[in-house]
């Protein structure tokens, strides 16, 4: 067996040494974007090449959606894209992992062109690490005008009542850290990062009151949960209203037709008072990998893909809300109901940058327990456990 082993491994070794290497003049870059964006990105890449015809680019497109960017990048940074899009809640982790290149070239131009919130979202410890791409990674309320009036859409209780009267439901994915936070943050809870560690006070008195509100909401017969597929499948049919983001605007518009409406999140009852639901305000950013062979060229590509012209294109083709100030002020964007609702909600929104990876699962766990109406443990215990898990390690 020993002999066998050795012979086998020597063979393997020869193979190892035979790594082929090719020399090529073209500037090889890889770009990641989500599945739906592929066609649009291809178009943008072509025009980028045309604009930089003095150099030969070999730009490969890879399919990795923004939500997966961090995980997929870190799986093998060397094989990852040179330029990739990600939601801004991943930026702290990515910077800590040494994944991103600082933006230094044309920094002033970029800072000037985009809304302050987007720049802030792309900045870590005073350095700009990414190019703002969209300002629509947040959520708000869609509703069916034939069931819920504009006035009723201002308060969660009124919405539930109206929906119940019509035998329909109000949708919110409470078992999801992203959405459930709107209660805790609305009640004034804190979710911050100190020394690279997550800090949360969701288990204090305010947090408990928020938890009570969540309990009441999820216990309501007119409450329905699930993922996007439930909302897009049921709205107009069994669902009268639902919390979601701009990416669902087209599907929901298609189903509701003339009854389509969108607005900021409603108020909810906290300790007997009406309090505005908060939310996470997210931006999608485009970053350059710190391991890229061609940093300047990759930066040029990232900058190009997020410039005014291409943000407008994103809005026109995919309905994505721009972070570029000029595009944001254009008439078409201003008239878009979903983006208007998002802009309204932005006044009550928190930065998603202050959320680390450890937050999501415990928050989801709390939401799941509430949705299952499992009250075997009291709320304070659940909150304590949740915060312990969020702040663990």
């Amino acid at each position, binding site marked *: 067996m*020993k002999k066998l082993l050795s012979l086998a491994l020597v063979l393997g070794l020869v193979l190892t040494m035979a790594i082929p290497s090719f020399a090529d003049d073209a500037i090889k870059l890889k770009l990641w974007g989500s599945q739906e964006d592929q066609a649009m990105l291809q178009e943008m890449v072509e025009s980028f090449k045309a604009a930089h015809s003095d150099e030969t680019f070999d730009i490969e497109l890879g399919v990795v959606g923004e939500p997966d960017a961090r995980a997929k990048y870190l799986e093998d940074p060397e094989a990852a894209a040179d330029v990739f899009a990600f939601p801004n809640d991943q930026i702290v982790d990515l910077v800590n992992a040494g994944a991103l290149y600082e933006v230094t070239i044309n920094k002033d131009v970029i800072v000037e062109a985009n809304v302050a919130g987007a720049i802030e979202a792309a900045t870590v410890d005073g350095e700009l690490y990414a190019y703002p791409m969209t300002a629509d990674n947040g959520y708000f309320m869609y509703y069916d005008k034939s069931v819920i009036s504009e006035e009723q859409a201002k308060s969660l209780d009124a919405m539930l009542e109206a929906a119940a009267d019509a035998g329909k439901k109000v949708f919110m994915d409470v078992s999801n850290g992203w959405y459930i936070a709107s209660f805790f943050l609305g009640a004034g809870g804190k979710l911050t990062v100190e020394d690279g560690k997550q800090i949360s006070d969701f288990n204090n008195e305010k947090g408990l009151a928020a938890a009570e509100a969540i309990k009441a909401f999820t216990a309501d017969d007119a409450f329905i949960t699930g993922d996007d597929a439930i909302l897009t499948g049921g709205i107009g049919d069994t669902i009268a209203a639902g919390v979601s983001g701009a990416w669902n605007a087209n599907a929901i518009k298609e189903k509701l037709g003339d009854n389509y409406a969108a607005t900021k999140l409603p108020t909810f009852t906290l300790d007997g008072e009406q309090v505005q639901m908060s939310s996470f305000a997210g931006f999608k950013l485009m970053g350059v990998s710190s391991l890229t062979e061609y940093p300047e060229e990759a930066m040029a590509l990232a900058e190009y893909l997020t410039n005014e012209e291409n943000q407008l294109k994103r809005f026109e083709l995919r309905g994505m809300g721009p972070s570029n100030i000029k595009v944001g002020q254009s008439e078409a964007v201003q008239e878009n109901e979903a983006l208007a609702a998002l802009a309204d909600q932005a006044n009550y929104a928190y930065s998603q940058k202050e959320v680390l990876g450890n937050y999501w699962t415990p928050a989801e766990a709390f939401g799941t327990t509430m949705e299952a109406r499992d009250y075997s443990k009291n709320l304070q215990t659940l909150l304590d456990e949740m915060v312990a898990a969020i702040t*663990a390690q």
Partner: protein
Amino acid sequence: MTRTALKQRKKKTGPGWISQLITMFREGDLKTRLGFLIMGFGSFMRGQIIKGLLFLTSQAIMVWYVLGFASQYLSKLDTLGDIGMQRVWSGERQNFVRTPGDNSLLILLFSVMSIMLFIAFIALWHSSIRSGYKAQKLLENKKRLPSFSDDIKSMLNDRFHFTLMSLPSLMVIAFTILPTIFMILIAFTNFDSKHQPPGNMFTWVGFENFSNLFGANPLIANTFSKILGWTMVWAVIATVTNYLFGMLLAIFINNKHIKLKAMWRTIFVITIAVPQFVSLMLMSQILHQEGPLNALLKQFGFIQQSIPFITDINNARLTVLSVNLWVGIPYTMLITSGILMNIPKDLYESASIDGASPLKMFVYITLPYMLFITTPYLITAFVGNINNFNVIFLLTRGGPLVTEYYQAGKTDLLVTWLYRLTVEKQDYSLASTIGIFVFFITAGLSLLVFNLSGSTRREEEFQ
């Protein structure tokens, strides 16, 4: 000294191959002794030219490999890297210039690979010396040396096992053993989301992960013990129910009055043929809060509110067990139906003359017979259920999540928990510690059963 004498020595002294080396050095002539330095020398100088050259080539490759590749990784094995990613401002480019630092993962992986290669090389070295020594002895005894073609021929007969095993072994070593050793070593490092390439390095931390798992970190330790408990409960129930119901189904179909046996069997076989990820994803859609089953029940008016099949803790556990039946029964049916037909008929005949009921016959004849024959299968199934990733992952993803667990839910098995830890949390070191634990349970159980059970004890019985 003859070969048998060598063998006897081997039994007396410690590691046989070292004493063998000593003997060969002591008794070898100059050619054999030079073979200690120049591989294949002993064979080459005695006319076994091809063999000698092959040994020499392998030595050359090894030297080239160590100097050109392995040394850069092996030298950093003690710390797993110490130079982080560098950045220097370049005024000319108006940009930072980055140079990647040490990659702990590659250092560890290639070090393990190099050490394994080195061990293999030692073995090769040893066999090259022995080959020279054997040639010397044969010549001393005035016997003919085996030519290269003789060696090849023996590969098809006396050493046929060598021929048959080499390629499969290479595959297993490269794709299973090496990766497994690597992952086991990860358990002794702090490889997690805060210590991973490209920006950061990880290093050795000894048994820290193990102590976290067994109590030092109450959150993780508590999660671990609870999930371990459920994993065992799940594995026992899933195995037993699948076995019993699968056998019952086989008995139903095998009933001599049932017609169209092939058709019935085929119906159940179809569900095996549909890939598990399809049928299980389908099941999770069907059982979804707003899925067709709830829709149907509401339509009939049995229920007003949807039944939370997979979001309520107890329902979810019941659901995964039931769906596992749906997935597993056809398999058990297929496997047991062949054996059922082999049960001696006279046992049943005499029992029915005594007036035994079908239930009694099942309990006193069928079950004991089947248990006796299928113990190895049962254990394999049990081990399979401990690691039953698909059913849990595709159906509930481990949920419903609970706040008292660390990154886990109530239907999570150890294996799905560590999937979440690696894929979502990049907490590789903790996951690999759990992996080692699972490995010990399953491997221990399998070794025990396979070495004690009839299948190995009776493997010679047809000789």
